[in-house]
């Protein structure tokens, strides 16, 4: 196997070295607290930059659900030094050079990224620094962009799984803002005022609430110097970031959601409350999710798909900053009743709780995770994206420590978390029922 080639550490005035783990070097911009992660790869011809803001739909409330995402769209409308009038939009300067340009929003974070032929990296750094504090947020842009976002919402509504998922989270969470999906409620998308979006920007878009990650082919010293120069012009946030202090009250019984729509798709989703990403139980829960439905040898695949009562099954162990959900999604085969599949799934959960999993199952799950861990470094975007999700949990070093923690998980640990979390009273069951055309 090829070994990872780790270059020496760059030293640049204005950026303090924090630590280095497995080829990822962390710095802190002295002027404003911006977190910097550099992962240079001397063999790569392509470089990637991602700015992750620690703000997401978790920081929204009634009336401005979807604000983080709508703001993300508006952040592409230009900034003081990069805009249509100056002939320098991100599309003109980077996409037309072949860059992969985009942004995404989720519960705990918002990210902006460019994967570029390496000679275009300096422009991407300058542009991201500019829009961190100098983005245009105009009412005319909100008016033109709102229908775009609404159509994105409408696209999602066409998908049975997305429609069911929204209801599941809305029912599982009653107080905590994971209650609403990142895209927000339709009426909020349509009516949130530009002033609220500006406030959101001013509340959260500051260097001390962000991480810039740069990976792939780049010169570490000149790149770090460019970050210090371009981002160093911004000060820290003038006031403390608004705290999100709402905690979800303890659930006291199974909850059930039903979505009925005309169509031929029938689905079930099973959600169980689990702790936040940095909890010690998470590694075992991740392995449990793989044992449940990763591949054709998994428990649920064999119990449902191999028996032709379902056409598809997947389980997601959502790793969020706050307590989250472990959800199994099942698409039913034609003419199979929801109740039949629900009974089968519950039986599988009971079996794991009572008998645990086998050593072979755990070994398979760990091999699968080894494949996933390797895939996280397969190309600049994969690495950026993986780092981004760990940053969102509050601790990027989890990128390095999680594989170590996964390796230590035993079959007893998996059974323990199954007993602890696959509890009916902590579950939310969702039916998507296709109604006759």
């Amino acid at each position: 196997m090829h070994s990872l080639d780790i270059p020496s550490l760059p030293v640049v005035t204005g950026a303090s070295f924090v630590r280095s783990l497995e080829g990822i070097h962390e710095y802190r911009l002295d002027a404003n607290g911006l977190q910097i992660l550099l992962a240079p790869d001397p063999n790569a011809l392509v470089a990637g930059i991602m700015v992750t803001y620690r703000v997401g739909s978790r920081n929204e409330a009634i009336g401005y659900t979807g604000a983080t995402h709508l703001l993300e769209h508006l952040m592409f409308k230009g900034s003081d030094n990069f805009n249509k009038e100056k002939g320098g939009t991100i599309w003109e300067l980077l996409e037309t050079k072949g860059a992969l340009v985009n942004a995404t929003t989720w519960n705990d974070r918002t990210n902006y990224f460019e994967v570029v032929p390496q000679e275009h990296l300096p422009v991407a750094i300058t542009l991201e620094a500019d829009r961190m504090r100098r983005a245009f947020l105009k009412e005319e842009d909100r008016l033109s962009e709102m229908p775009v976002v609404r159509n994105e919402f409408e696209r999602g509504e066409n998908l049975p799984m997305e429609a069911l998922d929204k209801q599941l989270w809305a029912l599982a969470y009653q107080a905590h803002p994971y209650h609403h999906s990142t895209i927000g409620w339709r009426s909020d998308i349509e009516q949130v005022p530009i002033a609220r979006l500006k406030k959101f920007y001013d509340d959260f878009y500051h260097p001390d609430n962000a991480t810039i990650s740069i990976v792939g082919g780049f010169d570490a010293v000149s790149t770090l110097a460019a970050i210090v120069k371009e981002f160093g012009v911004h000060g820290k946030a003038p006031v403390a970031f608004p705290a999100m202090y709402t905690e979800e009250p303890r659930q006291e019984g199974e909850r059930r959601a039903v979505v009925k729509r005309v169509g031929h798709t029938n689905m079930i989703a099973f959600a169980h409350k689990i702790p936040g990403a940095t909890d010690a139980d998470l590694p075992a829960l991740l392995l449990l999710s793989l044992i449940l439905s990763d591949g054709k040898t998994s428990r649920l695949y064999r119990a449902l798909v191999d028996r032709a009562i379902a056409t598809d099954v997947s389980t997601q162990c959502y790793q969020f900053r706050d307590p989250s959900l472990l959800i199994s999604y099942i698409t039913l085969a034609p003419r199979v009743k929801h109740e039949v599949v629900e009974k089968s799934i519950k039986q599988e959960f009971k079996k794991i709780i009572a008998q645990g999993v086998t050593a072979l199952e755990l070994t398979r799950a760990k091999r699968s995770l080894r494949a996933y861990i390797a895939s996280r470094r397969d190309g600049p975007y994969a690495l950026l994206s993986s780092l981004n999700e760990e940053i969102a949990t509050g601790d990027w070093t989890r990128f390095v420590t999680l594989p170590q923690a996964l390796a230590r998980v035993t079959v007893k640990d998996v059974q323990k978390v199954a007993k602890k979390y696959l509890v009916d009273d902590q579950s939310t069951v969702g039916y998507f029922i296709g109604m006759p055309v």
Partner: protein
Amino acid sequence: MKNEHVPAQEFPMAGGGRLFIASTYAHDVVVVEGSVLGGPTMLPAPLDVIPGLAAELLDAGTPKKKKSVIREALAGRGISLAFSSSGDRTFFSGRCFPEDLSFLLGTISESLNEASFPEAEVKNIKARALGELAEEKSDTRAQAERALTELLYDPLHENYVRPIKDQEKSIVTTRRLHLQNFRKILGRGGLVLAIVGDIETDSARAAAEKAFNKLGEGTMSAPAKHMNKKIQSTEEKLIPIADKANIDVVLGASLPLSVHHQLYHPTKVLTDMLGGGFSAHLMQTIRERDGLTYGVSATLAGLSTGADGYFKIWATFSPQRYEESIAKLRIEVDIFFSRGLTETALTKRQEEIAGSYLVALATTANLAASLHAIGTLGFDLSYLTEYPNIIRAVSLEDIKSAAELIPRHKLSLAASGTF
């Protein structure tokens, strides 16, 4: 290696196959993309569901090994492997650790050579296939895409997709023997294999030869391509589905053009100029200026098997603004063709395609897919490195010639949603 971003080599395989190996800097990742001749377009219409069903069961048992033995052996090594079939090929796609490459290739070969299609599995896969078709009936995008091929192609053309009810009938009447007979005709014929990632070239080559030399010769040969005989006209088909918040729309026209046509690359560049990304004409107007859609794109489709393909625009619109949106879309297509073909726009798009090609090849999976496509389409390996130069060599005159191929005033339309 640093200056040679595509360190790929090609080796001939017994029986005329093509083996591509690229040892890259990827760590602990090996991707295998491959295919052999044998797919739905080689069978008459009522039987064209057989290759897809057979592919799903290639790892579901052989006379010597039960399904569980095969699948647990793969899972125990962390290997992912999937078979599929479309066009004139049966495909396999795998991912493994470096030490398991021989095992993965051996399993692929064994599956192609010996899959036995147990009766219970055949019953199961038919039920699942019917379920997936049922789901498709309320999928607006799938419905629109399927309808467009019906509008553009004659039923004998390989890009024509049969109505769901016809496919359902075919699935119901499929028997185990059909799958077994189909498997017998698969072999080394037309084998294309790409192995990319954390590997040593010599050992990967040896592993590939050892595994696939065991594969029978097969009896499939690539059929001559049937050119579309349907005369183009402006047709519209609306597929209403209740309870849908969004309408999927596809507009298109079949083209007398395959990837080997002299105007293929100009047509590709032209299509990208119109709708190949955020900076392209349609996104800048229909989305960015007018706010009518989350996404609109223009692509060339139906070309991956070497057939004559089609030009397609896909967009999504709110039901409330559907008529207005379609009208604007048609106007912008016309404006692009009449005013948008400029040297400046061409140069920008050429740089974008060349740059994004480099970006895309930075992953193991994309490099493997590119090599496999080169093999199946009959290009020389040099196409991998020459592609950006080919794109940059396209002239404005070429673009204008390509534009003549696209009947922009005769685009057919298929749309699905709640009208």
